[in-house]
C-alpha cells in the first residue's frame, strides 16, 4: 500500500506531460507515472506525424534524437492518382515515437515523478475519504496505490475512464480502423507527406505515406468499417501497397483504432481526469492526436496539482479541466467534426475534379485557403457543403 497525490496511468504523450506538469507545479507533490508495457514508447501504434508549431510548445525538434524527418511539403493524391503539391514551409515532423515517448517520460522523471514501467493498473475503487485505491500489477507483484487524483492517459481502450464511470464509448461510424507497415526501399519525396483519398482506397478515411528517412516510410491507412466492402483495414492496405509500392520490403507492422469523434461528454469526475485518446481528444478531420494529447496532459497535470493544493479534488473543482480543454481545442474539434461530416458526402469524382482545378494554380500560390476558394468557384456543389462548415 502506497499513498500518492497524483497517479497517472499510461506513459504516452498525454500521461508523461501530465506527470511532468503536476510534478513541476508543486515540488512537494508525490506523482507516480505507470506504464503497462515494459518499455515506454513501444510498441509504436502511430503514424508518428506531428505539426511544427504544436510540437514546439513542448520540445525543440531541431537536432533532437527523437526526430526521424523534417517535413516541408504535403502531397495530396486524388483517387485517380493526380498529384497536388501544396506550398508550405514548416509543415511538421515525423517522430521516432519510441525515443520521443522515452524523452517525455524522462522529463517527467526529471521534474520529480516516479516512473514505473511494466506496471499495469488492474482496477480501482473509491474510498470513503474520497481517494481512489488503484490495484496495480508489476515486477514486484500486486500492490494498491491510494491517490488523491488519478489521471487516465491510457489510450483508446481507457479502462480508467470506465472504472471511474465515465462514458468513453464511441459510435462505429467514428472509429477509424488503421493498419500500417514500415516499408523500406521505395521511391518518394522524403521531405513530403503523401495523403490519398478514395472510396476504393480507404473508405471513410485516407491512406498515408510518412517518411522516416530516404527510402523508408510509415505507409498506412484508416477506414471506417461501416463503409468497407467487407475487407478489413489490413486488406485495404495490402492492396494499396501492391499498387503503389510493389517493390517495397514490409519490415514492420502495426494496427490500431483512431477515434474521429469529439471530446467525451465528461472528461472528469471526483478525483479522476482522462486525457488524450482516452478522452477522444483527437482532431476528427486529420486523426492527429499527439499534440492534442500533450496539451490535454498539460491541463490535466496542472489542474490536478492545483486541486490537490486547495484540498478539493471533487468533480466540481476538476470540471475546470474540461472547460479549459474545450476552450483550448475541444470546441475546434466540434467544428472539424462538422467538416468531416460534410466531406463524407463528396465522391471520388469531386476530388478528381478538384485536383485538376488546383493544379491550374501556380504551385507557390497553392495555399489551403486558395484551394478552398477555387473549390467554391469551380465546384458550386461545394457551396452547401462549405456553408455547413460554419453552422
Amino acid at each position, binding site marked *: 500500500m502506497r499513498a500518492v497525490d497524483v497517479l497517472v496511468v499510461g506513459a504516452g504523450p498525454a500521461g508523461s506531460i501530465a506527470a511532468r506538469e503536476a510534478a513541476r507545479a508543486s515540488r512537494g507533490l508525490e506523482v507516480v507515472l505507470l506504464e503497462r508495457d515494459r518499455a515506454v514508447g513501444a510498441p509504436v501504434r502511430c503514424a508518428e506525424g506531428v505539426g511544427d508549431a504544436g510540437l514546439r510548445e513542448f520540445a525543440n525538434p531541431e537536432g533532437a534524437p527523437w526526430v526521424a524527418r523534417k517535413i516541408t511539403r504535403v502531397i495530396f493524391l486524388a483517387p485517380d492518382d493526380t498529384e497536388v503539391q501544396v506550398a508550405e514551409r514548416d509543415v511538421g515532423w515525423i517522430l521516432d515515437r519510441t525515443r520521443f515517448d522515452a524523452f517525455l517520460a524522462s522529463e517527467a522523471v526529471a521534474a520529480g515523478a516516479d516512473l514505473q514501467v511494466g506496471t499495469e493498473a488492474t482496477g480501482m475503487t473509491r474510498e470513503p475519504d474520497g481517494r481512489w485505491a488503484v490495484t496495480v500489477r508489476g515486477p514486484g507483484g500486486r500492490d494498491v496505490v491510494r491517490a488523491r487524483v488519478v489521471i487516465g492517459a491510457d489510450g483508446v481502450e481507457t479502462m480508467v475512464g470506465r472504472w471511474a464511470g465515465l462514458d468513453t464509448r464511441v459510435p*462505429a461510424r467514428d472509429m477509424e*480502423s488503421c493498419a500500417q507497415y514500415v516499408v523500406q526501399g521505395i521511391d518518394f519525396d522524403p521531405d513530403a507527406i503523401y495523403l490519398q483519398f478514395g472510396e476504393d482506397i480507404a473508405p471513410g478515411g485516407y491512406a498515408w505515406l510518412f517518411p522516416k528517412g530516404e527510402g523508408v516510410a510509415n505507409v498506412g491507412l484508416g477506414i471506417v468499417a461501416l463503409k468497407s466492402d467487407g475487407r478489413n483495414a489490413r486488406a485495404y492496405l495490402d492492396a494499396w501497397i501492391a499498387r503503389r509500392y510493389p517493390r517495397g520490403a514490409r519490415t514492420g507492422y502495426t494496427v490500431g483504432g483512431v*477515434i474521429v469523434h469529439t471530446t467525451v461528454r465528461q472528461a472528469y469526475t471526483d478525483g479522476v481526469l482522462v486525457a488524450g485518446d482516452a478522452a477522444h481528444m483527437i482532431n476528427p478531420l486529420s486523426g492527429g492526436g499527439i499534440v492534442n494529447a500533450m496539451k490535454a496532459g498539460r491541463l490535466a497535470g496542472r489542474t490536478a496539482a492545483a486541486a490537490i493544493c486547495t484540498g478539493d479534488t471533487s468533480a466540481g473543482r476538476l470540471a475546470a479541466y474540461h472547460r479549459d480543454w474545450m476552450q483550448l481545442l475541444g470546441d475546434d474539434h466540434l467544428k472539424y467534426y462538422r467538416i468531416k461530416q460534410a466531406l463524407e458526402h463528396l465522391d471520388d469524382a469531386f476530388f478528381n475534379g478538384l485536383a485538376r482545378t488546383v493544379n491550374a494554380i501556380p504551385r507557390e500560390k497553392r495555399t489551403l485557403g486558395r484551394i478552398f476558394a477555387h473549390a467554391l468557384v469551380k465546384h458550386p456543389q461545394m457551396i452547401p457543403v462549405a456553408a455547413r462548415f460554419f453552422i
Partner: protein
Amino acid sequence: MPSVRAAEVAVVDLDVCDRCGLCLPLCPPEAIHLDSTALVIDRVACTGCRKCIAPCPVGALAMTAA
C-alpha cells in the same frame, strides 16, 4: 437482470488479436476488457450486436453460438 441471452456472442482469436484496444469503446455494454496479456470478452454481458466485428483491423473477432 434481463433473462434473455443473445443467440450469438463475440469471440476473439487470441492468435490473431494484436491487443490494440480498438474494439473496447465500440462495445455498448462494455463487455470487452484488455489487460497486459489478453483481450477478454464477457460472454454474459455481450449482447451479440456485432459492432466490434467488422472494425477489427486484423479480423480477430467473430460471432459464435452463445
